[in-house]
């Protein structure tokens, strides 16, 4: 699916011991993208895009990134203007701070806090297929029809401070930000790598970005 001129792109998937790396890797490989698993800071120099995946708790994830000295390289990579994609927990880590299971500073790339979904009348975790309400057109969502559903599985959500950083909302007991963005950084609460053809389309658009 990836065009010939994109073969110079290298997608770096950050491995910090938090979950579903294999699925993200497989998804990019199915698009014929070049993929590298990043475990040490030096590897950031050899990739053109980075992906921060992950499932599990916010505090544990930040501690793992700290222990592996991966926080500074992520921040520098983003400052250089190259594309970064955060998925699920990886999206939440873009925040100022999280509270799962205790308070912990995040990467601080997009302002806001990650808090427990405490909405009336719905079962938590939010698990299953849900739609997006896109606020504006965006390169990553090119070619994707309105009202299609994506796969979510989470109990916390990113309470984004500035409305201009929200690309999409979803509805589950309340309207919550499901895609965030700021310049070259995008984060999505759902799992594109688990959302069949529409999810793969987003990943393909990311490779092209």
């Amino acid at each position, binding site marked *: 699916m990836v065009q010939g001129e994109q073969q110079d792109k290298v997608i770096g998937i950050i491995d910090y011991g938090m*979950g*579903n*790396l*294999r*699925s993200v890797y*497989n*998804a990019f490989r*199915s698009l014929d993208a070049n993929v590298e698993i990043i475990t040490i800071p030096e590897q950031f120099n050899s990739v053109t895009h980075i992906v921060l995946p992950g*499932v*599990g*708790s916010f505090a544990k994830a930040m501690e793992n990134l700290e222990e592996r000295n991966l926080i500074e390289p992520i921040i520098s990579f983003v400052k250089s203007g190259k594309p970064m994609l955060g998925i699920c927990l990886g999206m939440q880590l873009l925040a100022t701070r999280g509270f799962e299971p205790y308070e912990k500073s995040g990467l601080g790339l997009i302002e806001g806090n990650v808090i427990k979904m405490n909405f009336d009348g*719905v*079962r*938590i*975790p*939010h*698990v*299953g*297929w*849900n*739609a997006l309400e896109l606020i504006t057109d965006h390169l990553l969502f090119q070619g994707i029809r309105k*009202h*299609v*559903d994506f*796969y*979510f*599985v*989470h*109990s916390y959500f990113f309470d984004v401070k500035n409305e201009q950083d929200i690309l999409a909302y979803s*509805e*589950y007991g309340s309207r919550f930000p499901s895609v965030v963005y700021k310049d070259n950084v995008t984060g999505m609460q759902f*799992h594109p*790598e*688990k*959302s*069949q*053809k529409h*999810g*793969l389309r987003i990943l393909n658009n990311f490779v092209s970005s």
Partner: protein
Amino acid sequence: MLKVRIIPVLLLKNDRMVKGKKFTDFKDTGDPIFASRIYNAQFVDELIFLDIDATNESRETNVAVISEVSKECFMPLTIGGGISSIQQIRKLLNAGADKVVINTAALNNPSFITEAADVFGSQCIVVGIDVKFEDNGYVIYSNSGKVRREEDLVGYIKTVESLGAGEIFINSIDNDGMMEGYDHQLIELVMSSTSLPVIACGGAGNLMHLVNTFKSTGVSALAMASIYHFGDNNPVRARSYLKNNDIQIKTV
């Protein structure tokens, strides 16, 4: 809004897929990897794999199936059967699973639920419960329906929720494979005992059963096997049928 899910269940036995009635009398229903490819092409909502002999043979869950399936099926994959250690869960998640079903090990050692949820997050820990209706109500069975338990169903559900489970997978042994419809009384009891999402299994024989159960119980998800193995229904038809009966299902 969140859609209801319909989830094919693939029972694994010696690398083959099987299906029985009331947890016995298993018939071969094909190759699980081939079946997964077909379900993937039909854009099913999720797949649940259950390695039904793993606990009773005291061996680990079938990781190879998940590794193989996750290479080409970019959809949620849940697997259970014989899971009793953090190391096993890590292996399955690394192979591409999103969630694991813990059944017998959760009954034998409830603190394992907390241990697993602390490491991988509650959203990844599904507690499976198999029950039979007997004289005085529902009775829990472990070890693939072979061992009768003393735990009270409602009390046990409340316990697993407080210990960190993220979802309940309830299976009616009486209705399993009978294709005569789901046990609404059981599903309603489970739904009212927990604030977690509930996947109910056991009894789907035609598409009207799915509509009736979603409408009358409000269950989060229904799982099924025989309806696809032994009838001429498939997930594509099921999705259209549900949509035409005003059930909110994933838009493909």
